[in-house]
Structure formats: structure tokens, C-alpha cells
């Protein structure tokens, strides 16, 4: 599209217009929901006749909604810890280790991404029902860990591959022990990648619906499950506020991750 001697003909304009329309299609619903959530009217209309925080008040004022935020956060934090630790160890082994069958092991670690979530969800449901553990935060966190693990592995593997192992070798040659080298050289440099992976694990869990749908109890509902139950009953405008909240969480996580990735790249590249 840039300088290559081509004149801007009607065909080019049409393609760009179509692409622009698709971009609008992608971003408009998200933006509209956020705007509409500040609507003061009873009905969700766009643009809102006047602004108000009533739906947010309703959202944060209702105990069951507040409780679901707590549940989602607890589950997501647990998932974040589990998935990041397991994923970091697994990536270290895969990138650094020397053994056969790496391809197969990678495939295994990524397989939860391939299997439709509904199947993973009912599998976990049958499993936890047998041991009477449905409705527990831990059960949901473990289920989400299965989904978050591939994400963490992908991010960590990329980070580790970008890390110049000669830095660690230099530390060893200067007399540092393996542990010290890891602690003082490697870890600080891969930290942005680790944090980024952790954030995505958190987000994966926070956004998830299908697994908690089966594993939730009456008292213990995640935010997403609560939305689902509301939607099935009625289209309550409060949900717009809840949705904006979720969009906000996503944006913050994406922004933080991008920021960390920027820092990380400049740190590990020599």
C-alpha cells in the first residue's frame, strides 16, 4: 500500500473500506457495551439518553454479584500460581533439556487447547463428582490450570528461547553455583516473561465459563457463571456493567503484559 508506484484505484479503496468495516465490526460491540453500561435509562439504548452509574451500583451493591467476584478472583489467583509454576518448570525442561520425544511432550502439554472445552469440562465434572468435590474453589482452580497450562508453556518457551544461555554460562564460569546463576542472572531476565505468562493464566481462568458451569455449587459461583444464569433468565442491564468490568480486567491484563514484554525484550537482547 505504501510507495510502490501504484495509484489508489477504486479496487483498493473498496478493499480498505471493507477492512475498515470489519475492524469496526470487531471493536464496536465491546465499545458499545462499555458505553451502554453507563446508561441511565431502563432500556439499553445507544447512545444512552443520559449517563448514570446505576448499573454499577446494582452490580457492586448486590451481595451475590460481589461474592462471585471474590470466587472468580480466588480461583484465578490459584490457577495463576499452579499454572505458572508447573508451566515454568515444564518449559525449562523442554527448552534446556536434552532428551528424545520433545515433540510428543509438547503436543501433550498443548492438548487442552485442541480438545473442545465442553469435553474437558464434563470430564472434570465426572471426575470431581466421583470424589464429591464439586462446588469447591480448589476443584475449579485445578480445572482452570489444565486450560491455562498450554498458554503458560507457549509464553515461557518463547521467553526462554529468547534468553541467551551464554549469560548463564558466563556466570558459571565466573564461579557462581547453578542456583545462584539462576537466581541472580536468569530469573531477573526472564521475569517479565514469567509475569506475562502468569497474567495470561489469570485471565484464562477469570474469563472461563464452561468448566465452572459444571463445577460450581449454589453458593460458589464465578462471575461468568453468574452472568450465564442471569442471561438465561432475563436480559438484565446490570450485566452490561458486569461485562464492562470484565472488559476492563482484560484490557488491564493485556496492557500490563505488553508493557512487561517490552521491558523483557530490551533486557534479554544484547
Amino acid at each position, binding site marked *: 500500500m505504501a510507495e510502490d508506484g501504484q495509484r489508489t484505484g477504486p479496487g483498493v479503496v473498496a478493499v480498505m473500506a*471493507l*477492512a475498515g468495516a470489519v475492524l469496526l465490526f470487531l471493536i464496536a460491540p465491546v465499545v458499545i457495551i462499555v458505553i451502554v453500561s453507563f446508561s441511565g435509562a431502563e432500556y439499553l439504548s445507544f447512545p444512552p439518553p443520559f449517563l448514570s452509574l446505576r448499573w454499577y451500583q446494582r452490580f457492586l451493591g448486590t451481595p451475590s454479584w460481589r461474592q462471585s467476584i471474590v470466587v472468580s478472583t480466588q480461583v484465578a489467583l490459584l490457577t495463576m500460581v499452579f499454572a505458572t509454576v508447573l508451566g515454568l518448570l515444564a518449559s525449562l525442561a*523442554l527448552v534446556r533439556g*536434552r*532428551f528424545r520425544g520433545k515433540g510428543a511432550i509438547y503436543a501433550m502439554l498443548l492438548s487442552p487447547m485442541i*480438545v473442545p472445552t465442553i469435553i474437558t469440562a464434563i*470430564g472434570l465434572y465426572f471426575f470431581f463428582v466421583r470424589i464429591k468435590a464439586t462446588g469447591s474453589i480448589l476443584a475449579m482452580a485445578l480445572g482452570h*490450570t*489444565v486450560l491455562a497450562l498450554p498458554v503458560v508453556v507457549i509464553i515461557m*518457551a518463547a521467553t526462554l528461547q529468547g534468553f541467551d544461555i551464554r549469560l548463564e554460562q558466563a556466570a558459571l564460569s565466573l564461579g557462581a553455583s547453578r542456583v545462584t546463576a539462576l537466581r541472580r542472572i536468569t530469573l531477573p531476565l526472564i521475569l517479565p516473561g514469567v509475569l506475562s505468562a502468569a497474567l495470561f493464566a489469570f485471565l484464562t481462568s477469570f474469563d472461563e465459563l464452561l468448566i465452572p458451569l459444571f463445577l460450581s455449587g449454589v453458593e460458589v459461583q464465578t462471575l461468568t457463571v453468574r452472568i450465564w444464569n442471569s442471561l438465561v433468565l432475563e436480559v438484565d442491564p446490570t450485566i452490561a456493567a458486569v461485562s464492562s468490568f470484565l472488559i476492563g480486567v482484560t484490557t488491564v491484563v493485556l496492557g500490563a503484559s505488553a508493557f512487561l514484554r517490552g521491558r523483557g525484550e530490551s533486557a534479554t537482547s544484547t
Partner: protein
Amino acid sequence: MKASAERRERLRYLLVLFPALLVLAVLFAYPLLGIVNRSVYKAGYTLDFYRQIFRVPVYLQVLWATFRVSALVTLLCLALGYPLAYVLATCRPRTARLLTIIVILPFFTSIIVRTYAWMVLLGRNGIVNQYVMALGLTDTPLPLLYNQAGVVIGMSYVLLPYMVLTVYSVMRGIDPGLVRAAHSLGASRLQAFRRIFLPLSLPGIAGGTLLVFILSLGFFITPALMGGPGDIMIAMLIEREVEITLNWSFASALAVVLLALTLVGFAGYNRIVRLERIFEGRG
């Protein structure tokens, strides 16, 4: 001795790998095996549940609806996604980065939020109808929700980024010098696109199409919320059989069928886009 030190190191790495694999084995592989087992067991091993799926017309209709909707979603995603990917691949890097954000942000937003947004837009008193009626384009509200149209729109919205990113990554690898060479040989913009760029972007089209189709097959949330009675997809059926009619064995059989279709699809996808290449380490 060097050999045993090497072996010790190898074992150390395998040990470090173990926890992740254990978690997956217990919480993923074992439950999957449980599903497969459940699908063939009812007082002895039997294929009755599978027979039920393929003999009873209702269930065949569900399979058909699943394929039909997935195909429509794939086509729509391709029609919308290819031009966007093309613009992304051929514009300046700074612009491309900004546009990529617009593609990525919805991608990471929860599916339920994205589905809800479309419910708000497409309902009888939804925003789209508000405008369409205010502009006088129609007297009665358009039925855009609780039917196939709604499902296709909603699912396409969720899956579009997959198509765009897959096609875009292939397009990025096409040498711009080739199109320039075509122009220098006398090809018009359309000729250069049709004969040079398009064929070279074919792997991206194939990969994106296959990926979106496979993912559509297993969709639950969007069709459940936005579809009508005739738009039941297989994932919805599975949920109903587990939660409501409590036919866990039958649900398991359905799950196995869905899984089989998915795996076949991904095998094909892997041939087109070598996923493993990312991980062939320098190790």
C-alpha cells in the same frame, strides 16, 4: 564420569517436567479416558450409545446443524477476515501494530461478554433494530436473535480473530518484491493479486478455514444463548444430557464423536501449518 553426569542431568530435567505432566495425566487424560469408557459401557461393553446417535433422526439433525452452522461461520469469517488480513499485511508497520490491537482486544475478552454484547445489539428491542426502525428501513423488528442468523453472527465475531491472525501470518511471509516484479512485467493490480499474491496466500486460507471450522464444531456458549430451537449444536446437546436428562453415557458418546471430528481436523491442520515448528528447540 561424563556419561553418568549427562544422564543425571537428563533425569533432572525429566523430573522437573514431571509435575506438569502429572497434573495433565490426572486432570485431563484420565477424565478423557473416563469419558470414552463411559460411552461404551452399560452393563457390559456396547456400542448402543453410538448407534443411538446415528440412528435417531433428532440427533442426526443436531450433527447436521452443527456442520451447517460451522460451515456458514467459516465462510463468513473468511469473507470478512481475508481483506482485513490483507490490509494488515500490506500497510506500514506502525499502522499494522495499531490495527492488530483492535483485532487482539476482542480476542482476549471473555466469550460470554462478547456473546452478551451481540444479544444487546441484535435483540428485538436491541440497538440494531432501534436504528433500523428509526431510519424507517423496516416496520417490524428484524429477527436477528434466537435463530441461525444470530448464532452465525455471534460465532463469527468470536472466531474472526483466529482467521485474521492465521491468514495474516502467512501473508507476512510473501515477498513484496514478487508483486512488484509482476507489475514490472505488465500485470495490473488485479492480475498481480489473482495470479501471484492469492495463490501464495492459499496456505493461510486453508489453515484459517480449517481452524475456524474445527473450533466452531465444539462451540457451546454462543449458540446456547443466541440460537433458536432449531439451532441446537452438539456441545449444547452434550450439556443437556449431562445436566438435565442425566444420560451421562450418551453424553459421553456424543463427546467422543465430537472429539474424533476435532482430532481429524487438527491432524489436517497440522499438515498445513506446522505447529511443532515453533518448538523445535535449539536444544
